[in-house]
């Protein structure tokens, strides 16, 4: 299997390398058809064919920065010393938490879970502030879902709810769901009907055959009404006043959904982050399931980060739960709201934090950020962030998918191998975490010896 080749034309410039079928890990689309042109001298990617605007930024902006590999309290230290300190912090903590993981390959995620198993910590991923509510909803109602290729091959009705892929997942439409021709969709977009449901007319709107504007915060009511109508029940005649959508539009949509051959509902943060959270996702998942009585219907959250889905999978197969897992008692426990990171920080429960490829200091609620400032933080990231800036121990790591290999899971749970483009002087997060894990094992063993 050839993953790299030196093209004929590039023979005179031996320092250019072409990586074919590389994978972009910027968003959950995880497009694996990148053709990267790498300037090996400059340690940077100069061209990313097939990439979208976000992917191009991702590939082109990730060069090698001049930055220390490791710092303690803002001062450069040898990597080993930083790993010692990180291990010490986690070992001594009574309530160490680990968070992030969605921009790390599965190999690193597995070590992160192992660390928490060892220090009796608490592990959570960015899922908890992304589609965590969908995860909770999933546990309540299940899910009818499919891989994206199935949508490409079969879906004649595509509905987006509360998401704006044109800006967040630019190739979602073109590579998987709307424009591509599929086995039973020979004419691509012409064979599909696309509906967009959102509170505002986003840049995604032009792709849709129909835009349904729901009143802000009324997604649940709209979904609930649809469920009732699909089941042949009546709804409040004031439905338009409540949701902003007329009964005629609803009836038409219901008929369309029941009569398509293969329908799909994609949904985004517009559901999970608004009032109702997991119930919004749950209503949508239940609607898709209800529709299976009439036709084939699937639903799928549009996941944000490159490997957030991998994090869900790894944490699930190692602990039995997808996120928000606590090991205090030596076995995994799950309870969102109790063991999820925003809560642990906002309540002031955590006394040390391992932040892996995430920046809670910039995007968490203020109260959580304030507690984060009070406790020792270990950060691993490929770029300086608000979090790394205030971390006790900050590791600069290589960028996954660009400098390091490994496995990531696309938003539809399809695992894909990464093809790194060039080497990085920075360690991988797997290496740093393994270093910390090894040290922790020693600290534990010493502790036991002392106790004995």
């Amino acid at each position, binding site marked *: 299997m050839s993953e790299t080749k030196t093209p004929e034309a590039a023979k005179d410039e031996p320092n250019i390398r072409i990586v074919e079928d590389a994978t972009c890990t*910027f*968003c959950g689309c995880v497009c694996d058809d990148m053709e990267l042109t790498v300037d090996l001298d400059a340690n940077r990617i100069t061209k990313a064919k097939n990439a979208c*605007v*976000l992917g*191009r*930024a*991702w590939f*082109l*902006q990730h060069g090698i920065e001049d930055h220390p590999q490791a710092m303690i309290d803002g001062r450069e230290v040898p990597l080993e010393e930083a790993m010692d300190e990180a291990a010490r912090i986690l070992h001594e903590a009574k309530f160490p938490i680990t968070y992030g993981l969605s921009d790390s390959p599965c190999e690193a995620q597995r070590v992160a879970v192992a660390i928490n198993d060892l220090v009796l910590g608490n592990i*959570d991923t960015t899922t*908890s*502030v992304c589609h*965590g*509510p969908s995860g*909770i909803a999933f546990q309540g109602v299940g899910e009818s879902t499919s891989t994206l290729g199935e949508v490409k091959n079969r879906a004649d009705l595509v509905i987006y709810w509360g998401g*704006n892929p*044109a*800006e*967040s997942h*630019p190739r979602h439409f073109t590579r998987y769901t709307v424009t591509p021709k599929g086995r039973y969709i020979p004419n691509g977009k012409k064979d599909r009907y696309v509906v967009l449901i959102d*509170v*505002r*007319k*986003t*840049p995604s709107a032009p792709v849709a055959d129909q835009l349904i*504007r729901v009143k*802000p*915060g009324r997604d649940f009511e709209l979904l609930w009404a649809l469920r009732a109508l699909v089941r042949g029940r009546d709804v409040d005649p004031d439905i338009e006043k409540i949701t902003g959508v007329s009964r005629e539009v609803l009836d038409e949509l219901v008929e369309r959904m029941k009569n398509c051959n293969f329908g799909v509902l994609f949904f985004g*943060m*517009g559901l*999970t*982050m*608004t*009032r109702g*959270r*997991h119930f919004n996702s749950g209503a949508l998942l239940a609607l898709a399931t209800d529709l299976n009585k009439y036709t084939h219907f699937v639903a799928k959250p549009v996941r*944000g980060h490159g490997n957030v889905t991998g994090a869900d999978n790894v944490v699930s197969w190692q602990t039995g739960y997808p996120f*928000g897992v606590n090991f205090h008692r030596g076995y995994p426990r799950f309870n*969102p*709201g*109790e063991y*999820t*990171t*925003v*809560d642990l*920080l*906002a309540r002031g429960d955590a006394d040390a934090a391992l932040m892996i490829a995430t920046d809670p200091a*910039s*995007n*968490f*609620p*203020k*109260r*959580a*950020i304030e507690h984060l400032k009070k406790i020792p933080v270990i950060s691993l990231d490929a*770029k*300086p*962030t*608000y979090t790394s*800036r205030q971390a006790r121990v900050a590791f600069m790591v290589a960028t996954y998918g660009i400098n390091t290999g490994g496995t990531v899971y696309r938003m539809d749970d399809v695992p894909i191998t990464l093809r790194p483009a060039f080497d990085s002087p920075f360690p991988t997060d797997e290496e740093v975490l393994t270093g910390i894990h090894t040290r922790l094992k020693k600290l534990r063993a010493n502790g036991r010896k002392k106790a004995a």
Partner: protein
Amino acid sequence: MMLIPGRSSKQGTSLNAGKLKEEYQAVTSTIEMNESTMRKLGLSAGDRVRLSCTTGKVEVECGKPRKDEDLPDGMIFIPYGPSSSELMESDTAGSGMPMSKQMMVDVECLGAK
């Protein structure tokens, strides 16, 4: 008024350059409203605006007006970032997810820069 943080391509691309870089910070502290709302509030593009709620307050810049049909009246859009965090309530209602969209805020015009 209702504040809706979300993703935008610009926020996404500037993220790659680095969060501590100016571009990202500028993108994530610029809000958008529709024409009528801006007119009602007496705002024009480039004005400084203070958003506040029970959780906190933050100063942002008013971006170019959006067409009325693109954004409902009374709604403010802002790309995710430190500014939206400042206003975010930390209660997750037992879900792990703070209410990160549809936050009710007060808007105060601070005049042009």
